[in-house]
Protein backbone atom coordinates (compact mmCIF):
# COMPACT_ATOMS: atom_id res chain seq x y z
CA UNK A 1 0.00 0.00 0.00
CA UNK A 2 1.23 3.44 -0.79
CA UNK A 3 1.75 5.94 1.97
CA UNK A 4 -1.21 8.10 1.00
CA UNK A 5 -3.41 5.04 0.70
CA UNK A 6 -2.45 3.98 4.26
CA UNK A 7 -3.13 7.42 5.70
CA UNK A 8 -6.47 7.58 3.92
CA UNK A 9 -7.42 4.19 5.35
CA UNK A 10 -6.48 5.36 8.88
CA UNK A 11 -8.52 8.52 8.46
CA UNK A 12 -11.53 6.64 7.18
CA UNK A 13 -11.29 4.28 10.18
CA UNK A 14 -11.33 7.31 12.45
CA UNK A 15 -14.42 8.67 10.75
CA UNK A 16 -16.24 5.36 11.03
CA UNK A 17 -15.52 5.24 14.77
CA UNK A 18 -16.68 8.81 15.20
CA UNK A 19 -19.93 8.22 13.35
CA UNK A 20 -20.50 5.05 15.36
CA UNK A 21 -19.99 6.92 18.64
CA UNK A 22 -22.42 9.66 17.63
CA UNK A 23 -25.05 7.06 16.76
CA UNK A 24 -24.56 5.35 20.15
CA UNK A 25 -24.92 8.63 22.01
CA UNK A 26 -28.07 9.48 20.11
CA UNK A 27 -29.57 6.08 20.87
CA UNK A 28 -28.81 6.34 24.59
CA UNK A 29 -29.48 9.98 25.26
CA UNK A 30 -32.22 10.38 22.66
CA UNK A 31 -35.11 8.98 24.70
CA UNK A 32 -33.96 10.82 27.81
CA UNK A 33 -33.82 14.07 25.87
CA UNK A 34 -37.24 13.44 24.34
CA UNK A 35 -38.67 12.81 27.79
CA UNK A 36 -37.17 16.05 29.04
CA UNK A 37 -38.38 17.92 25.98
CA UNK A 38 -41.93 16.72 26.41
CA UNK A 39 -41.95 17.58 30.06
CA UNK A 40 -41.40 21.23 29.22
CA UNK A 41 -43.65 21.28 26.14
CA UNK A 42 -46.74 23.42 25.79
CA UNK A 43 -49.93 21.96 24.35
CA UNK A 44 -49.23 23.07 20.79
CA UNK A 45 -45.86 21.33 20.71
CA UNK A 46 -47.37 18.08 21.95
CA UNK A 47 -49.99 17.99 19.26
CA UNK A 48 -47.81 18.93 16.32
CA UNK A 49 -44.50 17.63 17.59
CA UNK A 50 -42.79 20.96 18.18
CA UNK A 51 -40.77 23.27 15.90
CA UNK A 52 -39.76 22.44 12.36
CA UNK A 53 -37.42 19.67 13.50
CA UNK A 54 -39.18 18.26 16.57
CA UNK A 55 -36.28 18.97 18.93
CA UNK A 56 -37.61 21.85 20.96
CA UNK A 57 -41.11 22.96 21.93
CA UNK A 58 -42.60 26.24 20.56
CA UNK A 59 -42.87 27.74 23.98
CA UNK A 60 -41.11 25.82 26.72
CA UNK A 61 -43.11 25.88 29.92
CA UNK A 62 -42.89 24.42 33.37
CA UNK A 63 -46.66 24.31 33.78
CA UNK A 64 -46.68 20.48 33.99
CA UNK A 65 -44.23 20.47 36.86
CA UNK A 66 -46.18 23.21 38.59
CA UNK A 67 -49.37 21.26 38.19
CA UNK A 68 -47.84 18.12 39.64
CA UNK A 69 -46.39 19.87 42.62
CA UNK A 70 -49.81 21.25 43.43
CA UNK A 71 -51.52 17.92 42.92
CA UNK A 72 -52.25 16.40 46.32
CA UNK A 73 -52.31 12.77 45.25
CA UNK A 74 -49.01 13.15 43.43
CA UNK A 75 -47.28 14.69 46.45
CA UNK A 76 -48.69 12.00 48.74
CA UNK A 77 -47.58 9.23 46.43
CA UNK A 78 -44.12 10.77 46.22
CA UNK A 79 -43.71 10.90 49.99
CA UNK A 80 -45.09 7.38 50.36
CA UNK A 81 -42.58 6.07 47.85
CA UNK A 82 -39.77 7.96 49.55
CA UNK A 83 -40.72 6.68 52.99
CA UNK A 84 -40.95 3.11 51.80
CA UNK A 85 -37.64 3.31 49.94
CA UNK A 86 -35.76 4.76 52.89
CA UNK A 87 -37.34 2.28 55.29
CA UNK A 88 -36.45 -0.58 52.95
CA UNK A 89 -32.84 0.58 52.77
CA UNK A 90 -32.63 0.69 56.57
CA UNK A 91 -34.24 -2.68 57.23
CA UNK A 92 -32.36 -4.57 54.52
CA UNK A 93 -28.99 -3.14 55.60
CA UNK A 94 -29.62 -3.72 59.30
CA UNK A 95 -30.67 -7.31 58.65
CA UNK A 96 -28.42 -8.02 55.70
CA UNK A 97 -25.03 -6.70 56.80
CA UNK A 98 -24.66 -8.78 59.99
CA UNK A 99 -26.00 -11.83 58.14
CA UNK A 100 -23.49 -11.27 55.35
CA UNK A 101 -20.72 -10.86 57.93
CA UNK A 102 -21.49 -14.19 59.58
CA UNK A 103 -21.67 -15.91 56.22
CA UNK A 104 -18.36 -14.38 55.17
CA UNK A 105 -16.46 -15.13 58.38
CA UNK A 106 -17.79 -18.35 59.89
CA UNK A 107 -17.96 -21.93 58.71
CA UNK A 108 -21.70 -22.48 58.82
CA UNK A 109 -22.99 -25.94 57.98
CA UNK A 110 -25.21 -25.76 54.93
CA UNK A 111 -23.90 -22.39 53.85
CA UNK A 112 -24.25 -23.29 50.18
CA UNK A 113 -27.88 -24.21 50.73
CA UNK A 114 -28.55 -20.94 52.53
CA UNK A 115 -27.01 -18.97 49.66
CA UNK A 116 -29.19 -20.77 47.12
CA UNK A 117 -32.32 -20.26 49.21
CA UNK A 118 -31.56 -16.54 49.44
CA UNK A 119 -31.34 -16.20 45.69
CA UNK A 120 -34.35 -18.44 45.06
CA UNK A 121 -36.77 -15.62 45.95
CA UNK A 122 -35.60 -13.74 42.89
CA UNK A 123 -35.83 -16.70 40.55
CA UNK A 124 -39.58 -16.30 40.24
CA UNK A 125 -41.28 -13.43 38.38
CA UNK A 126 -42.63 -10.85 40.82
CA UNK A 127 -46.14 -11.48 39.57
CA UNK A 128 -45.88 -15.07 40.80
CA UNK A 129 -44.20 -14.44 44.16
CA UNK A 130 -46.59 -11.61 45.09
CA UNK A 131 -49.44 -14.08 45.55
CA UNK A 132 -48.11 -16.08 48.51
CA UNK A 133 -46.59 -12.94 50.03
CA UNK A 134 -49.86 -11.00 49.78
CA UNK A 135 -51.77 -13.92 51.29
CA UNK A 136 -49.37 -14.15 54.22
CA UNK A 137 -49.34 -10.41 54.75
CA UNK A 138 -53.14 -10.28 54.77
CA UNK A 139 -53.15 -12.87 57.53
CA UNK A 140 -50.49 -10.94 59.44
CA UNK A 141 -52.34 -7.64 58.95
CA UNK A 142 -49.36 -6.16 57.16
CA UNK A 143 -51.31 -4.86 54.21
CA UNK A 144 -52.26 -1.27 53.50
CA UNK A 145 -49.41 0.21 55.50
CA UNK A 146 -45.94 1.48 54.67
CA UNK A 147 -44.17 -0.94 56.97
CA UNK A 148 -45.71 -3.95 55.23
CA UNK A 149 -44.63 -2.77 51.80
CA UNK A 150 -41.12 -2.05 53.10
CA UNK A 151 -40.97 -5.56 54.47
CA UNK A 152 -41.98 -6.96 51.11
CA UNK A 153 -39.35 -4.82 49.37
CA UNK A 154 -36.80 -6.01 51.90
CA UNK A 155 -37.63 -9.55 50.86
CA UNK A 156 -36.70 -8.62 47.31
CA UNK A 157 -33.63 -6.58 48.22
CA UNK A 158 -31.94 -8.65 50.92
CA UNK A 159 -30.38 -11.27 48.62
CA UNK A 160 -28.52 -8.49 46.81
CA UNK A 161 -27.45 -6.82 50.04
CA UNK A 162 -26.10 -10.10 51.39
CA UNK A 163 -24.23 -11.01 48.24
CA UNK A 164 -22.69 -7.54 47.86
CA UNK A 165 -21.87 -7.21 51.56
CA UNK A 166 -20.36 -10.71 51.68
CA UNK A 167 -18.04 -9.78 48.87
CA UNK A 168 -17.03 -6.62 50.71
CA UNK A 169 -16.45 -8.35 54.06
CA UNK A 170 -14.37 -11.06 52.44
CA UNK A 171 -11.89 -8.43 51.27
CA UNK A 172 -11.40 -7.08 54.78
CA UNK A 173 -8.39 -8.89 56.32
CA UNK A 174 -9.24 -11.06 59.30
CA UNK A 175 -6.16 -9.78 61.07
CA UNK A 176 -7.84 -6.44 61.71
CA UNK A 177 -10.45 -8.18 63.85
CA UNK A 178 -7.82 -10.30 65.59
CA UNK A 179 -5.81 -7.20 66.40
CA UNK A 180 -8.94 -5.47 67.71
CA UNK A 181 -9.67 -8.55 69.82
CA UNK A 182 -6.19 -8.48 71.34
CA UNK A 183 -6.52 -4.76 72.05
CA UNK A 184 -9.63 -5.51 74.06
CA UNK A 185 -12.52 -4.95 71.66
CA UNK A 186 -15.59 -7.15 71.87
CA UNK A 187 -16.84 -8.66 68.63
CA UNK A 188 -19.64 -6.07 68.47
CA UNK A 189 -17.31 -3.14 69.13
CA UNK A 190 -14.95 -4.37 66.42
CA UNK A 191 -17.88 -4.80 64.02
CA UNK A 192 -19.13 -1.23 64.43
CA UNK A 193 -15.82 0.57 64.88
CA UNK A 194 -13.62 -1.30 62.43
CA UNK A 195 -15.54 -3.48 59.98
CA UNK A 196 -18.45 -1.20 59.09
CA UNK A 197 -16.36 1.95 58.47
CA UNK A 198 -14.12 -0.01 56.13
CA UNK A 199 -17.05 -1.70 54.40
CA UNK A 200 -18.90 1.61 53.92
CA UNK A 201 -18.21 2.04 50.18
CA UNK A 202 -19.60 -1.41 49.40
CA UNK A 203 -22.57 -0.94 51.70
CA UNK A 204 -23.24 2.45 50.11
CA UNK A 205 -23.38 0.79 46.71
CA UNK A 206 -25.83 -1.75 48.09
CA UNK A 207 -27.92 1.07 49.59
CA UNK A 208 -28.21 2.83 46.23
CA UNK A 209 -29.27 -0.41 44.61
CA UNK A 210 -31.91 -1.09 47.26
CA UNK A 211 -33.30 2.46 47.02
CA UNK A 212 -33.61 2.11 43.26
CA UNK A 213 -35.27 -1.29 43.59
CA UNK A 214 -37.83 -0.08 46.10
CA UNK A 215 -38.51 3.28 44.43
CA UNK A 216 -39.35 1.66 41.09
CA UNK A 217 -41.11 -1.40 42.47
CA UNK A 218 -44.67 -1.81 41.15
CA UNK A 219 -46.28 -5.20 41.75
CA UNK A 220 -45.86 -5.63 45.50
CA UNK A 221 -46.69 -1.98 46.11
CA UNK A 222 -49.83 -2.32 44.00
CA UNK A 223 -51.22 -5.42 45.67
CA UNK A 224 -50.26 -4.61 49.21
CA UNK A 225 -51.75 -1.11 49.13
CA UNK A 226 -54.74 -2.07 46.98
CA UNK A 227 -57.48 -1.40 49.48
CA UNK A 228 -55.78 1.39 51.31
CA UNK A 229 -55.63 5.11 50.80
CA UNK A 230 -51.97 5.58 49.99
CA UNK A 231 -50.15 4.59 46.87
CA UNK A 232 -46.65 4.79 45.49
CA UNK A 233 -45.47 6.78 42.49
CA UNK A 234 -45.09 3.85 40.06
CA UNK A 235 -48.64 2.74 40.92
CA UNK A 236 -49.94 6.28 40.47
CA UNK A 237 -48.23 6.51 37.13
CA UNK A 238 -49.96 3.34 35.98
CA UNK A 239 -53.32 4.73 37.06
CA UNK A 240 -52.73 7.95 35.16
CA UNK A 241 -51.67 6.00 32.08
CA UNK A 242 -55.08 4.39 31.92
CA UNK A 243 -56.66 7.77 31.11
CA UNK A 244 -54.32 8.23 28.11
CA UNK A 245 -53.06 11.57 29.30
CA UNK A 246 -51.03 14.07 27.29
CA UNK A 247 -47.43 13.25 26.61
CA UNK A 248 -46.21 16.29 28.43
CA UNK A 249 -47.84 15.26 31.70
CA UNK A 250 -46.46 11.74 31.45
CA UNK A 251 -43.00 13.04 30.64
CA UNK A 252 -43.11 15.41 33.59
CA UNK A 253 -44.03 12.59 35.97
CA UNK A 254 -41.18 10.46 34.61
CA UNK A 255 -38.70 13.27 35.14
CA UNK A 256 -39.97 13.76 38.70
CA UNK A 257 -39.63 10.01 39.29
CA UNK A 258 -35.94 10.04 38.44
CA UNK A 259 -34.99 13.10 40.50
CA UNK A 260 -35.00 11.55 44.03
CA UNK A 261 -32.92 8.60 42.89
CA UNK A 262 -30.32 10.96 41.44
CA UNK A 263 -30.29 12.99 44.67
CA UNK A 264 -29.97 9.86 46.83
CA UNK A 265 -27.12 8.58 44.70
CA UNK A 266 -25.25 11.88 44.98
CA UNK A 267 -25.65 11.90 48.74
CA UNK A 268 -24.48 8.31 49.19
CA UNK A 269 -21.68 8.62 46.62
CA UNK A 270 -19.49 10.51 49.03
CA UNK A 271 -19.09 7.33 51.09
CA UNK A 272 -17.85 5.44 48.08
CA UNK A 273 -14.21 6.45 48.18
CA UNK A 274 -11.77 4.06 46.60
CA UNK A 275 -8.95 2.58 48.62
CA UNK A 276 -10.83 2.10 51.85
CA UNK A 277 -8.40 -0.55 53.07
CA UNK A 278 -5.27 1.18 51.76
CA UNK A 279 -2.42 0.95 54.21
CA UNK A 280 -4.08 -1.58 56.50
CA UNK A 281 -1.99 -4.60 55.68
CA UNK A 282 1.13 -4.99 53.57
Amino acid sequence: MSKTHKTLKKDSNKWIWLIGMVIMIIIILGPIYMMFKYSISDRASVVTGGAVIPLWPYQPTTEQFGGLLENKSFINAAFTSLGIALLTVCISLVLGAPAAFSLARYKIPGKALIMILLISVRLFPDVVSVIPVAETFIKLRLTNNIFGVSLAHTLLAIPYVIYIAMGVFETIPKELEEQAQILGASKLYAFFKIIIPIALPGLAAAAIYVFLLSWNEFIFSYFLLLFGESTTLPVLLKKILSWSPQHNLLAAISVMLSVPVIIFTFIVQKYMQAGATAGAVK
Partner: protein
Amino acid sequence: MANVILKNVTKNFGKFIAVKDMNLDIKDGKFVTLVGPSGCGKTTTLRMIAGLEDITSGELRIGGKFSNYIQPKDRGISMVFQSYALFPHMTVAENIAFGLKIRKVTRDTILKKINWVLDLLDLTGLDSRRPRELSGGQRQRVALGRALVLDPEVLLLDEPLSNLDAKLRSKMRTELKRIHRKLGSTVVYVTHDQVEAMTLSDEIAVMNKGFLMQVGPPLEVYDKPENKFVAGFLGSPPMNFIPVDLAKDNSKFCLDAKDFKILIPDLKADKVKKNAKIGEELVFGIRPEDIIRIEKAKDVHQGNKIETIIDVIEPMGSELILSLTIGKHIIQASFVPDAHLKVGQKLTVVLDTNKIHLFKLDNEKAIF
Protein backbone atom coordinates in the same frame (compact mmCIF):
# COMPACT_ATOMS: atom_id res chain seq x y z
CA MET B 1 6.40 -8.03 83.32
CA ALA B 2 5.66 -11.69 83.38
CA ASN B 3 7.19 -15.00 82.47
CA VAL B 4 5.63 -17.46 80.04
CA ILE B 5 5.72 -21.21 80.53
CA LEU B 6 4.57 -23.78 77.99
CA LYS B 7 4.20 -27.29 79.34
CA ASN B 8 3.63 -30.17 76.89
CA VAL B 9 1.71 -27.85 74.60
CA THR B 10 0.29 -29.52 71.53
CA LYS B 11 -1.84 -28.07 68.71
CA ASN B 12 -3.81 -30.11 66.21
CA PHE B 13 -5.65 -28.80 63.19
CA GLY B 14 -7.82 -31.82 62.54
CA LYS B 15 -5.36 -34.55 61.60
CA PHE B 16 -2.42 -32.20 61.16
CA ILE B 17 -0.25 -31.75 64.27
CA ALA B 18 1.23 -28.26 64.05
CA VAL B 19 2.97 -28.14 67.42
CA LYS B 20 4.10 -31.29 69.21
CA ASP B 21 4.56 -31.49 72.94
CA MET B 22 6.37 -28.20 73.37
CA ASN B 23 8.10 -27.29 76.60
CA LEU B 24 9.46 -23.77 76.86
CA ASP B 25 10.33 -21.55 79.79
CA ILE B 26 10.48 -17.86 78.91
CA LYS B 27 11.82 -15.95 81.88
CA ASP B 28 10.58 -12.54 82.97
CA GLY B 29 12.11 -9.72 80.94
CA LYS B 30 13.90 -11.99 78.49
CA PHE B 31 13.83 -11.68 74.69
CA VAL B 32 13.15 -15.15 73.30
CA THR B 33 12.98 -15.91 69.61
CA LEU B 34 11.13 -18.79 68.00
CA VAL B 35 13.01 -19.48 64.80
CA GLY B 36 12.67 -22.11 62.11
CA PRO B 37 11.68 -22.72 58.49
CA SER B 38 8.20 -21.99 57.17
CA GLY B 39 5.59 -24.32 58.58
CA CYS B 40 7.60 -25.30 61.65
CA GLY B 41 4.87 -24.18 64.07
CA LYS B 42 6.43 -20.99 65.40
CA THR B 43 3.56 -18.66 64.46
CA THR B 44 1.04 -21.21 65.75
CA THR B 45 2.88 -21.28 69.07
CA LEU B 46 2.85 -17.49 69.24
CA ARG B 47 -0.88 -17.40 68.46
CA MET B 48 -1.52 -19.91 71.23
CA ILE B 49 0.29 -17.67 73.69
CA ALA B 50 -1.82 -14.76 72.42
CA GLY B 51 -5.06 -16.68 72.68
CA LEU B 52 -5.93 -16.54 68.98
CA GLU B 53 -5.65 -20.34 68.74
CA ASP B 54 -6.99 -22.93 71.15
CA ILE B 55 -4.46 -25.17 72.87
CA THR B 56 -5.31 -28.78 72.04
CA SER B 57 -3.48 -30.15 75.07
CA GLY B 58 -0.91 -28.91 77.53
CA GLU B 59 -0.60 -25.96 79.84
CA LEU B 60 0.12 -22.30 79.22
CA ARG B 61 1.05 -20.13 82.16
CA ILE B 62 1.52 -16.37 81.88
CA GLY B 63 2.88 -14.78 85.04
CA GLY B 64 2.20 -18.03 86.82
CA LYS B 65 -1.52 -17.96 85.96
CA PHE B 66 -3.08 -20.84 84.05
CA SER B 67 -4.10 -19.07 80.86
CA ASN B 68 -5.39 -21.68 78.40
CA TYR B 69 -8.94 -20.38 78.55
CA ILE B 70 -8.38 -16.70 79.29
CA GLN B 71 -9.41 -14.16 76.61
CA PRO B 72 -6.55 -12.50 74.73
CA LYS B 73 -7.36 -9.09 76.19
CA ASP B 74 -7.09 -10.43 79.75
CA ARG B 75 -3.75 -12.18 79.30
CA GLY B 76 -1.66 -9.03 79.59
CA ILE B 77 -0.25 -9.49 76.11
CA SER B 78 0.12 -7.27 73.09
CA MET B 79 0.84 -8.50 69.59
CA VAL B 80 2.29 -7.04 66.41
CA PHE B 81 1.35 -8.92 63.26
CA GLN B 82 3.61 -9.44 60.29
CA SER B 83 1.21 -7.37 58.19
CA TYR B 84 0.90 -4.66 60.90
CA ALA B 85 -2.94 -4.75 60.75
CA LEU B 86 -3.28 -0.98 61.12
CA PHE B 87 -6.86 0.31 61.02
CA PRO B 88 -6.93 2.10 57.66
CA HIS B 89 -9.77 4.49 58.41
CA MET B 90 -8.13 5.81 61.58
CA THR B 91 -5.22 8.20 62.04
CA VAL B 92 -1.95 7.15 63.67
CA ALA B 93 -3.06 8.70 66.95
CA GLU B 94 -6.44 6.93 66.80
CA ASN B 95 -4.76 3.62 66.01
CA ILE B 96 -2.44 3.94 68.97
CA ALA B 97 -5.23 5.11 71.27
CA PHE B 98 -7.62 2.29 70.27
CA GLY B 99 -6.76 -0.09 73.10
CA LEU B 100 -6.57 2.71 75.65
CA LYS B 101 -10.01 4.02 74.72
CA ILE B 102 -11.52 0.58 75.28
CA ARG B 103 -9.93 0.45 78.72
CA LYS B 104 -11.63 3.80 79.45
CA VAL B 105 -8.33 5.57 80.15
CA THR B 106 -8.77 9.33 80.64
CA ARG B 107 -8.17 11.65 77.70
CA ASP B 108 -5.18 13.32 79.31
CA THR B 109 -3.47 10.02 80.01
CA ILE B 110 -4.16 8.88 76.47
CA LEU B 111 -2.56 12.02 75.01
CA LYS B 112 0.44 11.63 77.30
CA LYS B 113 0.94 8.01 76.33
CA ILE B 114 0.56 8.73 72.62
CA ASN B 115 3.23 11.43 72.82
CA TRP B 116 5.53 9.14 74.80
CA VAL B 117 5.28 6.37 72.23
CA LEU B 118 5.58 8.72 69.24
CA ASP B 119 8.77 10.06 70.76
CA LEU B 120 10.13 6.60 71.60
CA LEU B 121 9.64 5.38 68.04
CA ASP B 122 10.63 8.55 66.19
CA LEU B 123 7.11 9.19 64.90
CA THR B 124 6.56 12.73 66.17
CA GLY B 125 4.45 14.86 63.87
CA LEU B 126 2.78 11.90 62.18
CA ASP B 127 -0.12 11.58 64.61
CA SER B 128 -2.81 12.83 62.21
CA ARG B 129 -1.69 10.83 59.19
CA ARG B 130 -3.52 7.75 57.92
CA PRO B 131 -1.74 4.44 57.32
CA ARG B 132 -1.83 4.89 53.54
CA GLU B 133 0.19 8.08 53.93
CA LEU B 134 3.02 6.32 55.77
CA SER B 135 6.08 4.44 54.57
CA GLY B 136 6.53 0.75 55.39
CA GLY B 137 8.95 1.48 58.21
CA GLN B 138 6.64 4.09 59.72
CA ARG B 139 3.66 1.71 59.59
CA GLN B 140 5.69 -0.94 61.35
CA ARG B 141 6.60 1.48 64.11
CA VAL B 142 2.99 2.59 64.52
CA ALA B 143 1.98 -1.06 64.91
CA LEU B 144 4.71 -1.47 67.52
CA GLY B 145 3.65 1.73 69.26
CA ARG B 146 0.03 0.57 69.40
CA ALA B 147 1.23 -2.57 71.19
CA LEU B 148 3.67 -0.85 73.57
CA VAL B 149 1.27 1.87 74.71
CA LEU B 150 -0.73 -0.73 76.65
CA ASP B 151 2.25 -1.63 78.88
CA PRO B 152 1.92 -5.33 78.12
CA GLU B 153 3.36 -7.97 80.42
CA VAL B 154 4.42 -9.93 77.36
CA LEU B 155 5.05 -8.48 73.91
CA LEU B 156 4.48 -10.86 71.00
CA LEU B 157 6.05 -10.03 67.65
CA ASP B 158 5.28 -12.09 64.54
CA GLU B 159 8.00 -11.48 61.93
CA PRO B 160 7.67 -7.71 62.31
CA LEU B 161 10.70 -6.94 60.14
CA SER B 162 10.13 -9.24 57.20
CA ASN B 163 8.30 -6.63 55.09
CA LEU B 164 11.10 -4.08 55.35
CA ASP B 165 14.04 -3.67 52.99
CA ALA B 166 17.43 -4.92 54.14
CA LYS B 167 18.81 -1.58 55.27
CA LEU B 168 15.69 -0.62 57.22
CA ARG B 169 15.58 -4.10 58.70
CA SER B 170 19.01 -3.82 60.24
CA LYS B 171 18.20 -0.35 61.54
CA MET B 172 14.99 -1.57 63.16
CA ARG B 173 16.81 -4.55 64.66
CA THR B 174 18.98 -2.13 66.59
CA GLU B 175 15.93 -0.07 67.54
CA LEU B 176 14.09 -3.13 68.85
CA LYS B 177 17.08 -4.11 70.95
CA ARG B 178 17.34 -0.60 72.35
CA ILE B 179 13.62 -0.49 73.18
CA HIS B 180 13.79 -3.89 74.84
CA ARG B 181 16.68 -2.76 76.99
CA LYS B 182 14.82 0.41 77.90
CA LEU B 183 11.45 -1.13 78.72
CA GLY B 184 12.59 -4.50 80.01
CA SER B 185 9.47 -6.25 78.69
CA THR B 186 9.25 -9.98 78.15
CA VAL B 187 9.35 -10.47 74.38
CA VAL B 188 8.46 -13.51 72.32
CA TYR B 189 9.67 -12.97 68.77
CA VAL B 190 8.97 -15.13 65.74
CA THR B 191 11.14 -15.08 62.64
CA HIS B 192 12.52 -17.35 59.94
CA ASP B 193 15.63 -15.17 59.67
CA GLN B 194 18.39 -16.69 61.76
CA VAL B 195 20.47 -13.50 61.68
CA GLU B 196 17.62 -11.64 63.42
CA ALA B 197 17.32 -14.48 65.91
CA MET B 198 21.03 -14.48 66.70
CA THR B 199 21.39 -10.72 67.08
CA LEU B 200 18.23 -9.90 69.03
CA SER B 201 17.65 -12.73 71.46
CA ASP B 202 18.60 -13.62 74.97
CA GLU B 203 17.53 -17.14 74.03
CA ILE B 204 16.80 -18.86 70.75
CA ALA B 205 14.24 -21.65 70.41
CA VAL B 206 14.78 -23.52 67.13
CA MET B 207 11.71 -25.31 65.80
CA ASN B 208 11.21 -27.77 62.97
CA LYS B 209 8.03 -29.56 61.87
CA GLY B 210 6.25 -28.78 65.12
CA PHE B 211 9.08 -29.90 67.39
CA LEU B 212 11.31 -27.77 69.56
CA MET B 213 14.79 -28.80 68.43
CA GLN B 214 16.90 -26.84 70.89
CA VAL B 215 16.68 -23.81 73.14
CA GLY B 216 19.46 -21.73 74.64
CA PRO B 217 21.49 -18.52 74.37
CA PRO B 218 22.42 -17.73 70.74
CA LEU B 219 26.12 -18.52 70.97
CA GLU B 220 25.51 -21.72 72.87
CA VAL B 221 23.03 -22.98 70.29
CA TYR B 222 25.43 -21.91 67.55
CA ASP B 223 28.58 -23.50 69.00
CA LYS B 224 26.99 -26.55 70.58
CA PRO B 225 24.08 -27.69 68.39
CA GLU B 226 22.36 -30.72 69.82
CA ASN B 227 21.26 -32.08 66.48
CA LYS B 228 21.98 -31.84 62.76
CA PHE B 229 18.98 -29.63 62.03
CA VAL B 230 19.99 -26.88 64.46
CA ALA B 231 23.61 -27.13 63.27
CA GLY B 232 22.56 -26.64 59.65
CA PHE B 233 19.94 -23.98 60.32
CA LEU B 234 22.05 -21.43 62.17
CA GLY B 235 25.00 -19.92 60.39
CA SER B 236 25.43 -18.39 57.00
CA PRO B 237 26.89 -19.91 54.91
CA PRO B 238 25.58 -23.06 56.60
CA MET B 239 27.63 -25.82 58.17
CA ASN B 240 29.19 -28.34 55.81
CA PHE B 241 27.97 -31.91 56.25
CA ILE B 242 30.02 -34.87 55.01
CA PRO B 243 29.06 -38.54 55.36
CA VAL B 244 31.86 -40.45 57.08
CA ASP B 245 32.59 -43.91 58.50
CA LEU B 246 33.98 -44.30 61.99
CA ALA B 247 37.38 -45.98 61.79
CA LYS B 248 40.50 -46.48 63.85
CA ASP B 249 43.87 -45.06 62.86
CA ASN B 250 46.53 -46.68 65.12
CA SER B 251 44.87 -46.23 68.52
CA LYS B 252 42.94 -43.07 67.72
CA PHE B 253 39.44 -42.71 66.39
CA CYS B 254 39.22 -41.20 62.95
CA LEU B 255 36.53 -40.33 60.43
CA ASP B 256 36.94 -41.83 56.99
CA ALA B 257 35.45 -39.67 54.24
CA LYS B 258 36.95 -41.81 51.48
CA ASP B 259 38.81 -38.83 49.97
CA PHE B 260 40.31 -37.68 53.26
CA LYS B 261 40.60 -38.62 56.91
CA ILE B 262 39.95 -36.59 60.06
CA LEU B 263 41.53 -37.49 63.38
CA ILE B 264 39.30 -37.12 66.41
CA PRO B 265 40.94 -35.28 69.32
CA ASP B 266 41.43 -37.29 72.53
CA LEU B 267 39.01 -35.09 74.48
CA LYS B 268 36.12 -36.30 72.37
CA ALA B 269 37.14 -39.94 72.24
CA ASP B 270 34.96 -40.92 75.21
CA LYS B 271 31.85 -39.49 73.66
CA VAL B 272 32.54 -41.37 70.46
CA LYS B 273 33.12 -44.63 72.31
CA LYS B 274 29.83 -44.29 74.16
CA ASN B 275 27.70 -43.39 71.17
CA ALA B 276 29.07 -45.10 68.06
CA LYS B 277 30.63 -48.30 66.77
CA ILE B 278 33.55 -48.80 64.44
CA GLY B 279 32.36 -48.96 60.84
CA GLU B 280 29.17 -47.02 61.62
CA GLU B 281 28.11 -44.35 59.13
CA LEU B 282 27.96 -40.91 60.72
CA VAL B 283 27.67 -37.30 59.60
CA PHE B 284 30.59 -34.96 60.06
CA GLY B 285 30.02 -31.20 60.34
CA ILE B 286 32.34 -28.21 60.09
CA ARG B 287 31.43 -24.54 59.72
CA PRO B 288 32.92 -22.58 56.80
CA GLU B 289 34.65 -20.18 59.18
CA ASP B 290 36.37 -23.09 60.98
CA ILE B 291 38.24 -24.20 57.86
CA ILE B 292 41.71 -22.64 58.03
CA ARG B 293 44.30 -22.07 55.29
CA ILE B 294 47.47 -24.03 56.03
CA GLU B 295 49.58 -20.85 55.95
CA LYS B 296 47.53 -19.42 58.78
CA ALA B 297 47.24 -22.63 60.82
CA LYS B 298 48.87 -23.10 64.18
CA ASP B 299 50.88 -26.25 65.06
CA VAL B 300 48.09 -27.84 66.98
CA HIS B 301 45.94 -28.10 63.84
CA GLN B 302 48.51 -29.88 61.70
CA GLY B 303 46.99 -33.29 62.15
CA ASN B 304 44.10 -32.71 59.76
CA LYS B 305 45.57 -31.56 56.47
CA ILE B 306 43.20 -31.68 53.51
CA GLU B 307 44.16 -31.06 49.86
CA THR B 308 41.45 -29.18 47.98
CA ILE B 309 40.87 -27.47 44.64
CA ILE B 310 39.11 -24.11 44.45
CA ASP B 311 35.90 -24.47 42.43
CA VAL B 312 33.96 -21.22 42.98
CA ILE B 313 34.95 -17.92 44.59
CA GLU B 314 32.20 -15.60 45.96
CA PRO B 315 33.57 -12.27 47.14
CA MET B 316 31.27 -10.83 49.82
CA GLY B 317 33.36 -7.73 50.50
CA SER B 318 34.11 -8.47 54.14
CA GLU B 319 34.87 -12.13 53.49
CA LEU B 320 35.51 -14.60 50.69
CA ILE B 321 33.28 -17.67 50.33
CA LEU B 322 35.04 -20.49 48.51
CA SER B 323 33.59 -23.74 47.26
CA LEU B 324 36.36 -26.32 47.60
CA THR B 325 36.30 -29.77 46.02
CA ILE B 326 37.90 -32.78 47.69
CA GLY B 327 37.39 -35.69 45.37
CA LYS B 328 33.61 -36.08 45.23
CA HIS B 329 32.94 -33.77 48.19
CA ILE B 330 32.33 -30.05 47.98
CA ILE B 331 32.70 -27.91 51.09
CA GLN B 332 32.34 -24.17 51.62
CA ALA B 333 34.98 -22.18 53.44
CA SER B 334 35.01 -18.58 54.59
CA PHE B 335 38.27 -16.68 54.45
CA VAL B 336 39.56 -13.17 54.83
CA PRO B 337 39.61 -11.53 51.35
CA ASP B 338 42.65 -12.46 49.26
CA ALA B 339 42.93 -11.41 45.63
CA HIS B 340 45.58 -14.05 44.91
CA LEU B 341 43.23 -16.99 45.14
CA LYS B 342 42.08 -18.21 41.76
CA VAL B 343 39.61 -20.81 40.54
CA GLY B 344 41.30 -24.11 39.78
CA GLN B 345 44.08 -23.38 42.23
CA LYS B 346 45.17 -26.07 44.72
CA LEU B 347 44.62 -25.10 48.33
CA THR B 348 45.66 -26.98 51.45
CA VAL B 349 43.40 -26.44 54.42
CA VAL B 350 43.24 -27.54 57.98
CA LEU B 351 40.21 -28.00 60.21
CA ASP B 352 39.86 -26.39 63.62
CA THR B 353 39.59 -29.62 65.63
CA ASN B 354 37.91 -27.84 68.52
CA LYS B 355 35.05 -26.91 66.26
CA ILE B 356 34.26 -30.17 64.49
CA HIS B 357 30.85 -31.74 64.97
CA LEU B 358 29.69 -35.33 64.65
CA PHE B 359 26.09 -36.50 64.26
CA LYS B 360 24.39 -39.90 64.30
CA LEU B 361 22.78 -40.83 61.03
CA ASP B 362 19.52 -42.31 62.37
CA ASN B 363 18.27 -39.74 64.92
CA GLU B 364 20.59 -36.88 63.81
CA LYS B 365 21.61 -36.24 67.42
CA ALA B 366 25.01 -34.69 68.05
CA ILE B 367 27.74 -36.89 69.46
CA PHE B 368 29.86 -33.77 69.92
